[in-house]
């Protein structure tokens, strides 16, 4: 039976606290995943097997040069803006201001959509193909998995905004707190990727 079945037994704060821990534990798994990606990046970079981290020019191929680090940082900046907007909304709902929540969650949703458009564009216009060496492989690894993260964020932000719009968070707002935890992690993971890609 579900948590909601027990809603008449339990205070929303108890349910919220439980849900927050559950999300944090799921994030532990996601953090392990992200740290493994960082390990992959620096392992292959340090090994530079067959000098193929960034392949030199050949008669058939120009040399592979790393993408300007600005791309990774820009998507992180957009995500960080989304986080700030969401936090603004969270502060609003904590103070009982539903309008501020609606505005913050809407701006956060728009920021997550902007982030995914930018991330997609970065992948689609990258000046290399998948088989151009280990750096390029790692670039796609970070970019694709960040894309997946942002997709999840859009889903969550859309739900969050819609529920704010419907006034569901008037009585309790632990959902919004938990969404904020996700936003923080999404920005941190994007930052980790940007940091790694800035060290080719």
């Amino acid at each position, binding site marked *: *039976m*579900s*948590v*909601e*079945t*027990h*809603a008449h*037994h339990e205070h929303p704060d108890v349910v919220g*606290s*439980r*849900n927050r*821990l*559950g999300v944090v*534990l*799921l994030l*532990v*798994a*996601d*953090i*392990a*995943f992200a740290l*493994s*990606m960082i*390990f*992959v990046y620096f*392992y*292959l970079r340090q*090994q*530079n*097997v*067959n*000098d*193929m*981290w960034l*392949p030199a020019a050949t008669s058939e191929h120009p040399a592979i040069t790393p993408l300007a680090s600005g791309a990774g940082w820009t998507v992180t900046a957009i995500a960080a803006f989304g986080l700030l907007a969401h936090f603004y909304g969270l502060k609003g709902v904590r103070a009982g201001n539903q309008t501020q929540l609606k505005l913050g969650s809407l701006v956060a949703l728009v920021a997550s959509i902007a982030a995914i458009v930018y991330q997609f564009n970065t992948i689609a216009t990258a000046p290399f193909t*998948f*088989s151009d*060496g*280990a*750096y*390029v*492989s790692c670039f*796609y*690894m970070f970019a694709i*998995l960040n894309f997946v993260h942002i997709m999840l964020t859009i*889903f969550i932000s*859309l*739900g969050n905004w*819609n*529920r704010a*719009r*419907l006034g*569901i968070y008037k009585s309790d707002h632990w959902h919004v707190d938990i969404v904020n935890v996700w936003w923080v992690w999404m920005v941190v993971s994007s930052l980790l990727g940007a940091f790694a890609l800035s060290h080719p």
Partner: protein
Amino acid sequence: MTTVMSKPVSAPGKSIIEKLNFFTALALGALSAIVVWRLALQFLPQDTEVRLFTREDKITLLSMTAWFVGFMTGIGALVGPFRWLMGKDLTHEENMFLAGKDMGVKRYFRYTTDHKVVGIQYLVITMLIFGIGGILAMLIRTNLGTPEGGWIHPQAYNSIVGTHGIVMIVGTIIMVTGPFGNFIMPIMIGARDMAFPRLNALSFWLIVAAAVPLLWGQFLGGISTGWTAYNPLASQAPLGMDGYIMFICIFAISTMVAGANITTTVVKMRAKGMTWNRTPIFIYGVVASVALALPAFPVFFLSQVLSAMDRALDTSFYNTAGGGSGWLYENLFWIMGHPEVYVILIPAVAALMEMAPVFTRNPLFSFNVAIMGIAGISGLSILVWAHHMYMSGWAPLLNTPFMLTTELISIPTGMLFLVLVGTLWRGRLWMTMPTMSIFALLWNFMIGGITGIYLSDVPADAFLHGSMYVTAHFHYTLMGAGLTGALAALVYWFPAMTGRMFDKKLSWISFWMVQIGFNIAFIGMFTVGLAGQPRRVEAYASTFNTGNMITTGGAYLIMTGMLVLLYGVISSWRSGVIAPKNPWQAKTLEWTVGYPVPLENFDVLPVVTSDPYGYGKAKS
């Protein structure tokens, strides 16, 4: 089967939840896979260069992903998230429907959230997995009955070995935390359900969804790499490897979800008065296992994502020609792979530690040492992975520290031995199959542990690595210790889960056949391994014939014992003796609710006032 209704509710309306079940999931999964397969065939461009399978890999992986999404949609896993998105949370009636209220046997084929239903589902799927893995084991042993082999085609043999390995690993990972962690654990801590019932159902149905790609892969060349799927071997393997990749990715998600759910349940939902000192040791074992899996399985997941990218997109994570490294895969794999051994072992040993006080009427010897042992094993297990790579040539300078950490792990393991032996010491033994299983575990785990010390030692490993000795060693730990604990748990908690006693005679017959067969089989395997027989071969020199014949004979005895056990499960479940409320006179909460267990487990939540092992104490 396992629950009764506490109060009537109005029948739910004809919502989508009501229409979805296992069969709609199968249909939608198959339909999605076929449609995506056809579209991919039509629209994916041909490869511009001659590459190994790349386009076919894309098509296969896309089709398998479509199966997965279709199946999970068809079973109803997405209903909750989309209702949340739309701001229309599930109603009380819908939640009761999801809990399987008034649904009889149908609830076992739905996305049912009641933890008791999920526990039974896990029990059945675990038995199915062991059945399939066992059949594959018997095919392997039959082929190895004669030196020349040849009974099975070498390629098929390789795939059977790989599939047996991964199927059994998954089976042993879920064999305790799945059935008993779900059915028993919430009642044992005095909770009404798991913290996240829908995630509970999700973790189970993900395993069902994962099984199909693995089966599918058998028709696409199988898993010819062994269960470890080392790269670059895996990137050159047939399309069946994509089935392995999908299987692992989906299973890893299931494990992570279950880990978060079980840990939250224990941390947040223990009954009043159940302080950490009064929490049963089995709970510690389950939590340590799933908490260990939480950071470990994402690494395994990533290793397979990168494998898929290498195969389908032609990236270079493991391909040395493109700047990748096979050692990278080995590191990622074993960073998960060794903690996984303890994910399997700890809950099984903890289950036996739970039973030891009951059947000796002694308090658990040194509860704190037991916890220190579990914590020590969990902590050290993440620092030992590279002992699997001594002979691979990766970082020889690190061999010594990894040898040290690996040998250190025998100290907390010894603590668990101490607790079991201390509890048995001068106890008034009630000789049941679970009691004998404690002795069997001590024997088997001692052999598994001591042979492990040789393998952890770099000079000895140089000789033993890649031999049948290694295979015998890990069977002694995972089967001799892990499975022994799980089978004891089945007999012990059978009355709580089914309302009937497990047939005593059949439990004894099965126990002795399995244990004798097991020791014959794997001591035989140790001897041929020490003599130099490599593992994963389908034919061998005639000098190893006697040892292999003994092993095959032992394997048939195990199989017969397992069939007796299966018969025991079915016959006891159908027509066994009705169990009294607390047949073992145990002190933990799962024996206070009777059978059938009410939907919410307890009418009034219990308050715990004493420790669960107060046997032999006044007023305990």
